């Protein structure tokens, strides 16, 4: 027994020596540009985030094949924060302080972003965040390439009101920060549009909720008053499948009460029985089904890189794609990877969207993007049924919340502030 333990210990020591040897080797290897990847590769979020890690690696490989950046090769540094929110801060610190990466691509959930944010500001790092989120934030050290609420939720409500003719709204959500903030904004927006309080129903369910019969029956009753009713769903993760199943079983079709979802994309639908979901809606800035040359090339490239013809692409992948392209352009423009120089160079950088049109990085660190609404098809893809005529500028601070309607974010001189109050002309001093 004792002997075995000793052996094991030796093995561990030996392997760690080899490992550190390898690491230092890398550190001293030619003067590379380092890109940190901070996505969970294990735990509950691994399903979604692993895809984004692969997307960044694919983009890096492509860039290196084109001759690298500033004449240097780009070297990825992948860490695994394991869906553990505090670990995001630790791993972020490791990337910035120890690995000295020039930029980080990472995070999915808002809570993980909030966790790593203080580290980024303390060590003056740079991170690209590629997922739709609830807004109410603008940090000097983060570029938000996913949708702000006015680039997903608000246009979706407009679509429901104008095109579907919805007058009553059910706001269903999973019980955590993103749905709660988004629903607060939506409620304020609906009220501003003249929807009465009795025509809005709000309901929160825990993560992974599976017994939807009572809630769906309530929705059915709520929708039987003769006014067109629609459901706005911020239900997250695998709770969606039993929810849509129950809708189908209780005989509620997308024509009676359409459900528009903000967290259901191609990846979530792949491999699932989509029959009960057909006709329901989702709002994103990208759908795989959009036929443009750039998108077809991207999809083909992705399938080739990952070696699986069945893999799908989705919105956060496009956001990662745009973010990476923008960073490359900004580094080329600035001629250095220095964070402050790149941060200033980023503003105004334009990169073509995969779905057509041009994405521009605004002074508030949010993108201008088109908003698309798609109907779920039987093959798990989306058919675009509506899109904004032009791109929409991401708004960091919602105009529909009393606490943030006076705030703007502008990281260009002379304001240089993430939360500038236009009435008092002051920067609150809060760092993010």
């Amino acid at each position, binding site marked *: 027994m004792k002997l075995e333990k000793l052996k094991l210990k030796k093995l561990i020591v030996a392997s760690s020596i080899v490992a550190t040897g390898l690491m230092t080797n890398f550190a001293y290897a030619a003067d590379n540009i380092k890109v940190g990847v901070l996505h969970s590769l294990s735990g509950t979020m691994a399903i979604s985030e692993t895809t984004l890690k692969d997307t960044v690696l694919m983009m890096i490989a492509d860039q290196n094949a084109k001759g690298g950046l500033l004449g240097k090769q780009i070297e990825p540094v992948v860490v695994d924060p394991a869906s553990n929110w505090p670990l995001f801060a630790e791993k972020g610190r490791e990337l910035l302080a120890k690995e000295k990466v020039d930029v980080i691509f990472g995070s999915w959930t808002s809570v993980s972003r909030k966790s790593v944010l203080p580290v980024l500001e303390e060590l003056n790092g740079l991170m690209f965040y590629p997922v739709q989120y609830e807004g109410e934030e603008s940090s000097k050290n983060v570029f938000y390439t996913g949708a702000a609420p006015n680039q997903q939720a608000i246009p979706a409500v407009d679509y429901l009101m104008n095109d579907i003719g919805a007058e009553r709204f059910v706001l269903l959500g999973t019980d955590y920060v993103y749905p709660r903030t988004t629903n607060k904004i939506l409620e304020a927006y609906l009220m501003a549009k003249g929807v009465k309080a009795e025509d809005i129903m709000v309901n*929160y369910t*825990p993560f992974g909720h599976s017994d939807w019969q009572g809630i769906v029956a309530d929705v059915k009753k709520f929708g039987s008053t003769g006014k067109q009713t629609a459901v706005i769903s911020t239900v997250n993760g695998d709770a969606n499948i039993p929810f849509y199943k129950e809708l189908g079983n209780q005989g509620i079709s997308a024509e009676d009460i359409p459900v528009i979802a903000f967290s259901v994309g191609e990846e979530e639908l792949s491999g699932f029985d989509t029959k009960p979901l057909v006709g329901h809606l989702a709002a994103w800035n990208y759908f795989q089904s959009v036929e443009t040359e750039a998108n077809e090339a991207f999809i083909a490239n992705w399938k080739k890189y990952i070696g699986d013809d069945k893999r799908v692409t989705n919105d956060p992948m496009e956001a990662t794609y745009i973010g990476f392209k923008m960073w490359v352009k900004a580094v080329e423009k600035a001629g250095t990877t220095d964070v402050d120089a790149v941060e200033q160079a980023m503003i105004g950088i334009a990169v073509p969207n995969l779905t057509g049109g041009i994405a521009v990085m605004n002074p508030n660190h949010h993108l201008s993007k088109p908003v698309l609404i798609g109907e779920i098809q039987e093959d798990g893809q989306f058919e675009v049924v509506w899109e904004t005529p032009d791109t929409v500028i991401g708004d960091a601070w919602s105009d529909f919340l009393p606490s943030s309607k006076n705030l703007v974010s502008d990281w260009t001189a002379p304001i240089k502030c993430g939360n500038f109050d236009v009435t008092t002309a002051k920067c609150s001093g809060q760092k993010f």
Partner: protein
Amino acid sequence: MLRLFSLLFFCVISFNASAAVSETQDNSALVALVEQLPSTKLNKMAPLIKAIAATSTPQVQDILQPLMTGDLYYLKSNKQVVAAHKNEQNQYQLTDVLTAEVLPAVAKSAIKKVRTNNRLRGQIRDLLANLDLTHQDKTVRLEAVKQLLQNPNQTGITSVTNLIKGEQDEQVRELMLVILLIDQLDTGSTAEKLSAAQQLSGRLESKVKNELVKQLDLLPEQPENEELRAVLSQSIDDIEQQATVYGLVENLFFGLSLGSVLLLAAIGLAITFGVMGVINMAHGEMMMLGAYTTYVIQQMFPNLIEYSLLMAVPAAFLVSGFVGVLIERGVIRFLKGRPLETLLATFGISLILQQLVRSVFSPLNRQVQAPQWMTGSLEINPMLSLTYNRLYIILFALMVFFSLLMILKKSSLGLHVRAVSQNRDMARALSIKSSWVDAITFGLGSGIAGIAGVALSQLTNVGPNLGQAYIIDSFLVVVFGGVGNLWGTLVAAMTMGTFNKFLEPSMGPVLSNIIVLVGLVLFIQKRPKGLFPQKGRSAD
């Protein structure tokens, strides 16, 4: 854009005018309209569809039906509009919608879908409903009448007025009458309104109540309207009273359905924990194994989805039961009389099983399909419908419960199990192999957990964490019902389920769960041995 629109408008008018002229002319008009389908934008589709329907040619249905179901395509090469269906070779079988000519099958890339959206599909459904009113199949007629009731339009109402006398089917005729009464309520004189409101009293269709409420709101405050006002309010009250009753029935059903899920999850535990006294933290994982067995069966026999659940029940029982016996023989029997260590060891086993499933099946949820007979709902009346999957699971849970009760009460195995659990030494003295009985009992409890997993696969996601979601609830049910008492488990499960569902509408799912839990804790304070405590010497 404007030009296109005015062209369309012109088309509509000209077709309406020429509708009566001759069949051939109509056809050429239809051809011209159909040719526009591939190039028309979504927001310009509505008038086009209306125009197609207005031609009243026999082909209208052949065009609109596939358009509604998403089977209408056009060939990319020559823009010919076709109805397409996937065949077994993954190719698309094409039929020209105008000539009904069958074309050679093509690959997906050669055709493109004619786009619609929910609003257009609703419009088509209304248009088709008007045509289906004269369909020979009465179920189709019934659907058509229901659709018309939901969205009444003048054309439909006129046809109903003509058709109602000749209608043979009782149910269809009744709905037709409702449609006419609603129309009468909307447009008739005061006397007509009065009689319509009286006749509509007691109808449960949501449209009826909405219409009555609308009329009541619109009614001017005049003395001559008082009678009508009284009748309207009376009818609305009648309907609302019924709605309350059916609401209660529905809630009770939801409660029993949740209760039956709890019962299924807890009943296996009632044996291993209740009868044997083993705290088995891996009980949830036995359910998970059952659910995965269902998945594997569906993968093995992809053509027998309808029967997959029937096959999965015995298979899951065997798989989980076998694993249960292994656990008992391999671990638990060495820890007899040491509950803390049993708890830790079985918790470890549960983690091992979860990780095993993660490695074998990937951490992603697996998709278990629902057979046709488990989808949809049983409509008792327009206010009350029970979903089939829940209905079957209630029946299934009761079946499992009573068969287990029979096994324990009537079979010799049951006799031995009871004997060992009541007095092990005495049982052994009477030549009962107590260790063998232990293993079989544990296997039986685990096997039943596996069966519960088959049922759960229809309600929730099949993934590595499936078991954890139910283990706490299972223990609660067993403790609440009284350890070692199967009837207690039944009553406890149903009580908790119904209680939860009656609280949920006003409290939300999170709070109602908490309240049930707090209630349970208080109850246990008062009666530590649960609802039905065991009495006598065997109680210790």
